[in-house]
């Protein structure tokens, strides 16, 4: 935990120093911005054209995991978390220049042990999500994207040492509120992109066995009424925070280094679950331009995650 806090503090200090650099060297930056602004004006799409700009990220994360599911055990399991993810953001169209979509998929695999280290709980799930963000310009060069997305998680937790209750299914779909705060940091000739993405679901549905109910009961006794339950902040408190910095590499791609934290606590059907992921993230960010009309695109065209109204 100390290492994690230290890294975050270093990122904060970098951000703070970068802001000082940005304000003291305002003239030179505005020169660069004016070039971009001209390019943007030249690139205003014609009515018949549609354009789609996308930045795509593929990332891998590894870290620490807490797993508590009192359907399976009364004890907190701790272990390792691995995940692989893909996400993409792009503007919908020229008619809605402030709205970009947000979509992606993730695969998570976690292995945890009980306090006595003689039992292992496995967790694996896939997540797909789709949503949209509206772009706001904040002061001091910050960009805020605020919106919502929906997810589907499918997977299972397994504690195979258990007899009739060895598995608890993970199946839920939620509507999330989402906010991404980002900032372009200039350090000398280098440019870094700092980003913090916070999201929390506020309403959804999830699958949960009932108190002491076994899957035999559901499968053979047909006792499955009430296994799909509506959720909200009161019975499903979940949030996710992804703090990252994109570092450029020879104009080919940006490397993303991040710290991903996700917490989910559910109390449904008198079954409590707690899940916590703390992971370090490494990824590759790639810009993609998909134009209809075969237009030539200037190399300094701004891509969606860095779109800034003040530069128009």
């Amino acid at each position, binding site marked *: 935990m100390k290492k994690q806090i230290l890294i975050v503090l270093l990122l*904060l200090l970098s951000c703070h120093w970068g802001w000082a650099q940005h304000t003291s060297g305002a003239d030179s930056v505005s020169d660069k911005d004016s070039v971009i602004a001209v390019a943007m004006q030249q690139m205003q799409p014609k009515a018949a054209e549609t354009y789609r700009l996308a930045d795509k990220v593929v990332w891998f994360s590894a870290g620490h995991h807490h797993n508590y599911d009192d359907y399976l055990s009364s*004890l907190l399991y701790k272990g390792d978390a691995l995940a692989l993810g893909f996400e993409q953001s792009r503007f919908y169209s020229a008619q809605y220049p402030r709205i970009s979509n947000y979509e992606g998929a993730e695969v998570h695999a976690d292995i945890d042990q009980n306090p006595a*280290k003689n039992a292992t709980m496995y967790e694996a799930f896939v997540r797909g999500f789709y949503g949209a963000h509206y772009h706001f310009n904040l002061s*001091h060069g910050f960009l805020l994207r605020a919106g919502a997305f929906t997810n589907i998680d499918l997977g299972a937790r397994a504690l195979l040492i258990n*007899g009739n209750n060895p598995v608890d299914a993970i199946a839920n779909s939620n509507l999330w509120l989402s906010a991404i705060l980002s900032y372009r940091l200039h350090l000398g000739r280098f440019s870094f992109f700092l980003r913090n993405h916070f999201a929390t679901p506020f309403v959804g549905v999830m699958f949960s066995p009932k108190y*002491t109910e076994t899957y035999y009961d559901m499968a*053979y006794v047909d006792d499955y009424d009430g296994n799909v339950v509506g959720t909200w902040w009161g019975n499903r408190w979940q949030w996710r925070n992804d703090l990252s910095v994109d570092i450029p590499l020879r104009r080919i791609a940006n490397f993303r280094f991040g710290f991903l934290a996700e917490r989910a606590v559910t109390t449904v059907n008198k079954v409590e679950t707690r899940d*916590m992921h703390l992971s370090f993230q490494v990824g590759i960010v790639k810009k993609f331009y998909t134009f209809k009309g075969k237009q030539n695109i200037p190399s300094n065209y701004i891509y969606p995650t860095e779109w800034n109204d003040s530069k128009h």
Partner: protein
Amino acid sequence: MERFKTLILASLAILPVFLLNGCDDDLEVDNDIDNNFEILWKTVDERYCFFDMKKDSIMDWNYAHDYYLAKAHRCKSMEELFYTFGDMLNELKDGHVNLISSFDVSRYDIQGSYKDNFISNVIYSDRYLGRNYRKAGGLSYKLLGDNIGYIYYGSFSDGFSEDNLSQVLSYFRNTKGLIIDIRGNGGGYISYVDQIAGRFTSTKLLSGYWQRKTGKGHSALSDLQALYLEPSGGTKYLDKPVAVLTNRDVFSAANNFAQTMKVLPQVKLIGDVTGGGSGLPISNELPCGWFLRFSSAIYYDAEKVCTEWGIQPDIQASLDVQKAYLDNEDSIIETARQWIVKQN
């Protein structure tokens, strides 16, 4: 001022890290006698399903708490603690309640003073299965001399396929009747129960009821839910007498099988009262690494009678030990053969 604003905005980014710090501390428990005892006692207190039903025949659970906690504090080793915990669980008088460690499994003696009524060597003698018996999955079978089929199924943990069942019943299609011997069968997968029993009916039948724990209170139980036996696909064995042989070791899924077969008109239970075990067990664990198993759902027969304490046979029969050892004769099988012959 601008720097201050920037700092505030950036600080939001690390807020989650501090929110997560120590968030599961309430779940961290020390591995000491008190914590292990309390988790064990509380888990059973909140989730065990038979407290109400057994309240007149078992120790009051609150009294058990004080009595056994005091005993636990006097334990000088983990082994001693294990057996103290085991003794407390045995107060529930339930064969489905176990404490499992790397060195032993605590268990309630369901056999008690009942006779074994089963000698394995006898059924594998030439008089019955012999050495050349057939085996389909977990089912051992042979055609007896008087044209009666004999199947021995020793554990519901031993699997079989639908094809296995069809082959066995096809083999016995021209017999006068069938003996299904489940003596010594301590249970296993309950899904096999309907798989076998469904071969002996052509109509859907009420086979029993089921009730589940719904909350922490001892009386928090769901309404009774009816269970039905559906006819299975594949080869059937209908309209001929079927004897199911039982003894006190017939427990859990095997007890459920006896209960289910009993609703079929052509079936008689022959032998001794079964061992019961009509609870469906689930698992949990203790901080010291011991695992716990206990009943959380109750099965009842078609008359809404709980079979936790066993099922009485339709025809009581005991094993004549002298004949068994001297002549390899199993008097319970012989009783079943006589009953089948009488039905023809």
